[in-house]
């Protein structure tokens, strides 16, 4: 188990280096430079432009800038935003709870619906239920996030007026945010109605962000359940006289969840990618929106730092999933 863990950790190093190269290269491939953007439409005197670039260290060869970035990174320094001059790490940390809260809610939505629907479709294979679930899943998977989000806003916020259009909390509430998680903070604030308001704000973005993972999880659960239901041990379970529900919920599901867990882990990456679009649509003050803003401001350090932190998180989540494997699959636990 320990060697397994060490091997996995060692593999993170080259992955991490690759991520730094890609983020750095991508960020610098965006046309334009921060000085020109800050100067705006009026433009800037070329001499002053060159001077500012020099001050920011952006006139040096690109590889020098990369090694400089890497060197500071190794010292735990992600640099400062070119725009706000705050530490990138601090900015990220302040915004991250909003993204995390949204992502968790989206994932809960995807799991709570996706697994039962997948099981149902698998058990009732070939039925109308199966076709409906799989058809809907395919549609959900193919739906572009920005379009899906706008559709939901138009219908539920616009036509029906059930949910707010954007933000995390209505402006009528003013509460302290010690944790950064709106659901927890509104509960702590004891402000009447604030918690419900926070939930209402979360519903649509969670659905939008959770749709793709939901589709993937439902499909995976279905095929996994189908495979497991043909196994000999399912026949044994039925031969014991167990009720069909118990056969599926206990004997089939536990085994079917093994491949689904991997998929769930992989969806975390999809979730963060989706969060960037979702947060932009719903003006959700999280890391995704911050990254989009940083792109338009050519705020290189914020972009590099933000993407790197997210990539690291995704890597850690996948590592955790690998480790969790052993918990649900005893064969792996003992073979190591």
């Amino acid at each position, binding site marked *: 188990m320990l060697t397994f863990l060490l091997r996995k950790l060692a593999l993170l190093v080259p992955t991490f280096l690759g991520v730094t190269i890609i983020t750095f290269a991508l960020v610098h491939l965006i046309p334009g430079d921060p000085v020109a953007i800050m100067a705006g439409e009026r433009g800037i005197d070329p001499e002053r432009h060159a001077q500012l670039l020099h001050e920011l260290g952006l006139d040096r060869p690109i590889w020098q800038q990369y090694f400089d970035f890497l060197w500071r990174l190794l010292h735990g320094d992600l640099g400062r935003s070119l725009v706000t001059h705050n530490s990138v790490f601090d900015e990220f940390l302040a915004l991250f709870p909003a993204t995390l809260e949204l992502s968790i809610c989206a994932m809960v939505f995807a799991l709570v619906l996706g697994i039962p629907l997948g099981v149902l479709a698998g058990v009732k294979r070939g039925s109308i239920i199966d076709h409906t679930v799989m058809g809907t899943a395919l549609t959900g998977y193919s739906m572009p996030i920005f379009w899906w989000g706008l559709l939901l806003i138009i219908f539920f916020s616009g036509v029906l007026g059930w949910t707010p259009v954007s933000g995390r909390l209505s402006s009528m509430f003013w509460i302290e945010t010690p944790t950064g998680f709106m659901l927890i903070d509104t509960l702590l604030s004891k402000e009447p109605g604030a918690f419900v308001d926070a939930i209402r704000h979360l519903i649509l973005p969670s659905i939008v962000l959770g749709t793709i993972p939901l589709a993937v999880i439902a499909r995976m659960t279905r095929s996994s359940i189908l495979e497991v239901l043909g*196994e*000999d*041990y399912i*026949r*044994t*379970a*039925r*031969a*014991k*006289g*167990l*009720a069909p529900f118990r056969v599926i919920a206990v*004997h089939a599901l*536990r*085994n079917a969840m093994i491949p689904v867990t991997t998929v769930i882990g992989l969806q975390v990456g999809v979730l963060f990618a989706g969060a960037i679009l979702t947060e932009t649509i719903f003006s959700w003050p999280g890391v995704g929106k911050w990254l989009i803003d940083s792109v338009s401001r050519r705020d290189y350090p914020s972009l590099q730092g933000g993407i790197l932190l997210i990539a690291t998180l995704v890597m850690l989540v996948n590592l955790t999933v690998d480790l969790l494997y052993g918990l*649900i*699959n*005893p*064969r792996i636990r*003992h073979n190591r």
Partner: protein
Amino acid sequence: MPLLDIQNLSVAFQTRSGVFSAVTDIHLTLDKGEVLGVVGESGSGKSVTMLAMMGLLPWNAQVTADRFSFDDQDMLSMPEKARRRLTGNDIAMIFQEPTTSLNPSFTIGFQIIEALKIHEGGSRRQRRERAIELLDKVGIPAPAKRLGDYPHQLSGGMNQRVMIAMAIACNPRLLIADEPTTALDVTIQAQILDLLLELQQERGMAMILITHDMGVVAEAAERVAVMYAGQLVETGTAGDVFHHPRHPYTGALLNALPERHPGQGRLPTIPGVVPGIEDRPQGCLFNPRCPHVQEDCRQTRPALESDHSTGSSHDVFKKVRCYHPLVAQEQGEVAP
């Protein structure tokens, strides 16, 4: 009144391309504490018949019978829930592949205790004690320690012992053993068979032993039913069937036993294969492979009829499905 009484049982499978009958015209009776051997090649319908008894056939199977009763209760008209109370409790089954028949994600203790829990109740502690007792009974060393083991940690023979422990957990009155030793090492086969017979004697269980090993039947069964292509072709007491086979198929099966041809190079075989569910011939199902085939065999299908030519004439169980049963001289060819 027999414990198990089956008259004219048929199983058909509904598929997209039509209805296919897998087994037809099965007549079986079994008294308390009796051992019946069911023999036949792969594809002869042995397992389908047994799964029908357990109610474990897939949903597209249609089971019909003139009479299908266990302990004077009609199994066909019985509600699903009542049926499940019998399954695993009064009628238990063990399967061919012990390693895949146990759920890999649960400990063997969990799997044994589960059977006790749904049928017998009792306290947690009592069930645990009982599970240990059962494991001890089936010859598993250090049973208390083994409770926490997973199936992949045990050998095939040990797993089959666990399956047996699970099957006898609720003191069934009928145990169906579907080729219980086929997947095991030759040395282990004898041990498992002995264990089954010992438990059968001790508990007075009725047992149906499915096998394609004639030697096993000779050793264990009091009565024998020979199946071919979904039909019974011959039934009788073990001694009768072995020494005076009437059906050419039984004769050929016995003739293929290695111990009947000591020191000879090649064993006699039955040319051809069992016809599949879709390509059964006209007339007697065995006619294309039968060495004694005559014209009438190709025209109409013979019925299973009582046969008083050999053995004890009062044996009502002695039946054969053949227009031209083997006579003493031909039997002599196959009997030692």
